[in-house]
């Protein structure tokens, strides 16, 4: 799919914290190897047991809308042709205790509601600098 906010819109810098989330082609959530706690965004230490041993959990990609805001004012000129758009806070069914941010896709921005079931879909875009393929998790209505 093409990008919700346009193919020229800013991309995440790929580093030790972001690469798994934005290049795996799946919804990937950090999980503590010691106590199995999930956390997002990734961090260098487990927020629950303070272990430094952290791994990646591959989620099935089902979630629920916990909050939604529809952005009407383009705060950057690069977004002027892409408003309104929906920003969702999504809880992940098989990774309890984490929330992720994404855009609502596949229907009008003002049609997403708190409590709606959603499933992940991937925006694919090549990083113009590195040439690396990014897969950016987004959310569409489910069920």
């Amino acid at each position: 799919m093409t990008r919700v906010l346009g193919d020229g819109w800013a991309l995440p810098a790929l580093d030790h914290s972001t690469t798994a989330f934005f290049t795996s082609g799946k919804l990937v959530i950090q999980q503590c190897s010691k106590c199995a706690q999930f956390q997002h965004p990734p961090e260098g230490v487990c927020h629950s047991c303070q272990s430094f041993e952290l791994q990646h959990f591959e989620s099935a990609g089902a979630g629920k809308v916990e909050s939604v805001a529809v952005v009407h004012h383009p705060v950057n000129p690069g977004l002027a042709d892409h408003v309104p758009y929906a920003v969702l806070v999504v809880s992940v069914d098989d990774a309890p205790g984490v929330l992720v941010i994404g855009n609502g896709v596949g229907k009008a921005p003002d049609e997403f509601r708190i409590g709606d079931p959603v499933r992940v879909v991937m925006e694919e875009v090549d990083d113009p600098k590195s040439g690396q393929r990014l897969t950016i998790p987004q959310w569409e209505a489910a069920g």
Partner: protein
Amino acid sequence: MDRKSAVTGIGESAYYKYGDSPHTEFQLACIAIMAAAEDAGIALSEIDGFISYSDTRNGPTRLAAALGIENLRWAATTGSGGNSVAAAMMLADAAVTAGYAENVVVFRALCQGQFGRFGQAGGAGGTMSGLLAFNGPYGLLTPAQQCALHTARFMHDHGISQEALCDIAMACYANAQNNPRALKYGKPLTREQYHASRWIVTPYHLFDCCPENDGAAAVIVSSAARAKDGPKSPAWIVGAAQGIGPQFGTYAPDNLASSFYGQVAENLWGYTGLGPTDMDVVQFYENFTGAVMIAMCDMGFAPPDGIEEFVSGGALVGADAKLPFNTSGGNLAEAYIHGMQMVNESVRQIRGESTCQVSNVEHALMVGGPGYAPGSAIVFGAST
């Protein structure tokens, strides 16, 4: 009681719409500080500390040179934004109470015409790092958008309608109609104008969001000995507090419908031994009306399920309001000096100098910007 520090002087520049200031930001800072020193009845050379928040563009060494400070003993800037207004006051209180300094300036100066909007979003076409890497690619860029997500969830959970946000905005505008310093003086806001204004990000209309202004405000925090000698009635610092949650941000799974002021309330009321019903007048930093609504609940003024009724029917309007609130017009309607002007207004209420003066003020509360951490709040008192 045995108070150790007090605000002895307040000052401000004239307030301007974005880009209209005839002065640079540094000049605005100097204007406000010189006015505060005059109000406190001290020479500029007697100032021995500078504290600000958010950024260091008008740093203490530059100010010390420009204002002829002879012995700068205390300089600090908190790292975060409007949430730390009262934290900056707390630093001044700590310095004076410990005896490290005697006359500490706390100030905020901004010239957005010169430096751009506070919290402005970054550019397109680049890459985003850190926490922004997980938000920016989705167009989640600004404080308004982040606070909107918290407000939307709060409204959903507690059955709050848009009218509650409208009532908060209208109260600020109504109170500004008494205040000739206010940029919205002579420009009242009607319910119809509110609802007709454009959406910025749901659930925030234009009138739910702080404007862009230029100006400066400053206070002098002095030792008790100095305060008792000053020309004006001291506004004693009863206590201040910071707090971060519990849990903070749009990734806080159990605390999404929050302004993150629960710990601030617990710490402030615990430290002072006071509570919401002891406050005669309150100033809440409005970055956004919805965030203030949640902060009122977090601070204990109303239960979440009752907040819409609590703010309705003009309950926040005027000096004899059920809860006298943002009596100078606040960030929305006096001027957006990042809440520092609300410290000045709290001092005016203690002195009896407000343009919307509440009678017999013993305690005045100022609450910093909601939705960000560490949040902060401060209580001023009329009595030692």
